[in-house]
């Protein structure tokens, strides 16, 4: 028997959305397939890798272990809500805190949740907080440094890095 669909209302990245879901569907599936928010990644679909981390009412959760129907009326934030100007995102680029970037969206959302709670987390606290987010490329060192830098309001290692160049405005030359 195919499952009956239920309508789910939630707030995603600032937008109120209504979406039809099956009761067995995970938040991850609804985000990636239903809402086409593919920034959130699936690395295991079993709660073991952290690639699917999003913020649910401000708390980092694993979207692959969260049933979509439990999110009725709640606030979800995915990596699509961040921008390149975000000091945390910028610190990741400055520190080389990602290589393939597949773990990075989840890592960023965990870090967002952490920074919202502790303004300036210690490196030990950061390591604890991201210990559920697996990264196979970096060895974690640059990730810890990037989050620490963002917490301290720095971008680069000593703040020597210029800001990302703003996208320039442009006017067509007169013929």
């Amino acid at each position, binding site marked *: 028997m195919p499952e009956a669909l239920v309508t789910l209302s939630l707030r995603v990245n600032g937008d109120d959305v209504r979406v039809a879901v099956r009761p067995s569907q995970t938040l991850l599936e609804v985000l990636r397939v239903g809402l086409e928010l593919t920034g959130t990644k699936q690395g295991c679909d079993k709660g073991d890798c952290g690639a699917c981390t999003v913020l649910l009412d401000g708390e980092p959760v694993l979207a692959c272990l969260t049933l979509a129907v439990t999110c009725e009326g709640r606030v979800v934030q995915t990596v699509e809500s961040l921008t390149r100007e975000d000091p945390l995102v910028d610190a990741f680029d400055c520190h080389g805190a990602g290589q393939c970037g597949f773990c990075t*969206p989840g890592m960023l959302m965990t870090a967002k949740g952490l920074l919202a709670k502790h303004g300036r987390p210690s490196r030990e606290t950061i390591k604890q907080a991201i210990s559920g987010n697996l990264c196979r490329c970096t060895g974690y060192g640059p990730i810890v440094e990037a989050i620490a830098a963002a917490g301290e309001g720095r971008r680069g290692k000593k703040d020597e890095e210029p800001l990302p160049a703003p996208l320039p405005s442009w006017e067509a030359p007169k013929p």
Partner: protein
Amino acid sequence: MSGLIGKAGRRGDLVQRALGSTRFTDDLHLPRMLHGKTLRCPHPHARIARVDASKALAMPGVAAVITGKDLPERFGIIPWTPDEHPLALEIARFVGDGVAAVAAADERTAAKACEAIEVVYEVLPSAVELDTAITKPEIGLGAKRQDNVSKAVDLAFGDVDAELAASEVVLEGDFHFEGTAHVPIEPHCAIAQVDAAGLLTVWSTTQVPHYLHRELSRVLRLSPARIRVIQPPLGGAFGGKSEPFGHEFTAAKLAMITGRPVKFLMTREEEFYLHRGRHPMRLSFKVGARADGTLTGIDARTQIDGGAYSSFGLVTTYYSGQLLTLPTTAKSYRFSSTRYFTNKPPCGPKRGHGSVQPRFAFEVMLDRLAERLKLDPIELRRRNAVAADSKTINGMRVTSNGNLECLAKVEAASGWKERRGKLGFGRGLGVASSAYISGTNYPIYPNEMAQSAVQLKVDRSGVVTVFNGASELGQGTDMLLATIVADELGLPLDCVRVVSADTDLCPVDLGAYSSRGTFMNGNACLAAARQVKAKLIAAVAAKLEVPEDAVFVTRGALCVKGREGDAVPVDEAIKLAEARFGALGAVGSYKTPPKLGGEYRGGTIGASPAYSFSAHVAEVQVDVETGVVDVVNVWCAHDCGKALLPTQVIGQLDGSVYMGVAEAIFEEHLISPSGLHRGPNLLDYRIPTSLDVPAIHSMIVESMDPEGPLGAKEAGEGPLHSSIPAVANAIYDAVGIRLSRLPFSPGRVLEALQQRGRG
């Protein structure tokens, strides 16, 4: 050169990936797309007597089911050993071998349909363990069914027996490595689509789009002109995506049958069965030396557990011996390596293909020799170092060589002289050094064409597009090419776009394996960029009426020597050049110089246009109560020729050390006697978290390779090799035990400590 090369700082390519605008393969969703699932064999070795898919086909939502008979052609990455079928044809050779594949409206339906397929298996005698494969040749997993041998290589250089007989010291040692997996966070995924004109397009998480193109054509019996392979950016690979996989063919076949796009996404469990991870090996080493520390002979015998199929096994077997003659050498060398088939998930290349396991054995032997000879282990390596601009004992040409500088760097940074042996019981330092290829001159299938090529398209808007066949896995090749072009032409980085790994758009590159990207792709790109640069210079010189050699490129403009005020912006120069020469573009290619290797059968395997060098010192703290080894620090110095993108290079060193240390202390790919994986998930097969990693101190050494692009060599695989033996040697320094079996888990450490206590 205009100042972009060699700058540390921003990675520059992370934001799109980080924020979700990069589309990885599984992020692609095509209209009317079906989802595929594979039914896998539950037995390690079985004849498939009957497959009945009628119940599955009758299920609502199921579009098609195929079995081995629908794709009878064999494939394999090495053209001499094609022994895989997309779905097992008659015989399945390991638990997890594909038997049938379904395309259905969604993944759940496809999975249910797989369960509804009825298969009758006749279970065959199997060799799951390496020992069984060796002692029971009658199981007949080999090509001629007479034994279980996949490949045997015996090579000797110099008179090993005579040298060892005349040595003051000869030590023997046995070593055991049980295998590890790549575990990229992105699982394998493939999507296939056939358009109305009959063009098959396959998007896949592959490191070898060109080889996939060839094999798709062969297996599907379709002209390569009717196939397009696109490799989206990868979420990590580490060698685990460097050959064709069954699901790439089944996706294509099901798309051809149904006329609809079909996607296969592997589950994490399937990842562990597809495997192609680092080969289990048993190694026996005999190494001799004179009293002054001169190494006289190395005699190595290695048994390799290949798993069910050939994969790169021919190369693995050679690499297990051929890559051991650098950076430390002996007067004579002999190795005998045999790869056996077993009924396990197939093994393949993982970061440091074939050479990580023997490196572990050899570097531990060197540590033991140094102790016996009362020499500092670093000094022993110095005394036997291969020189720059020389030839190895097995005939490999060596050019740039930063080995001694790497050793000096880790010696100084770790406080080796002051601290080693003086840290108290439980804490210790260990050293190891290694070398690796920067690409190989062996092109997998024999041909005289370029190994890498790049095409540049120059636009009037001041944008240059690099079309390149190479594969971006996260290691940074796209950024490397963009930087080379921007630097040569004086363009801002964001005015260079890179289009990669699309067989319709890009010239052929053989793929991201053997650490060939920077060296081969970089050289191809540099050659193309320099042609465009010459045209820009010619056009500017003509316009300003000055000789061409007076014009040079700076950031943003072309200038005239002595007349800096006359700068012509690069986008203006592009227009001038287009007016003068017509449409602007260029192609560049790279091919290794001929005759790099030794003059014997197999002498080209392991021959590289350049070698990278690494040295590591590890510091460990061993808890004698629990047996837990805590790797506290690793100092890693790596000679990459020239660090074109230092942030990316440091990232490769950090990542290599991380991966190597994990293999030293806890990763182990275990298959039970029934052929089942012991824990095909990320909880049981534990990879390090942020709480498990040492402090990694990565240091760059630059030897300026004469043939590398702007002096560069590889950095992605070499720096892993020394991690494992450095940890092993540090454990000895800490608590006086020699562990011969990896990983150095608490149980093994405790057992060795107890034995030492008794002994």
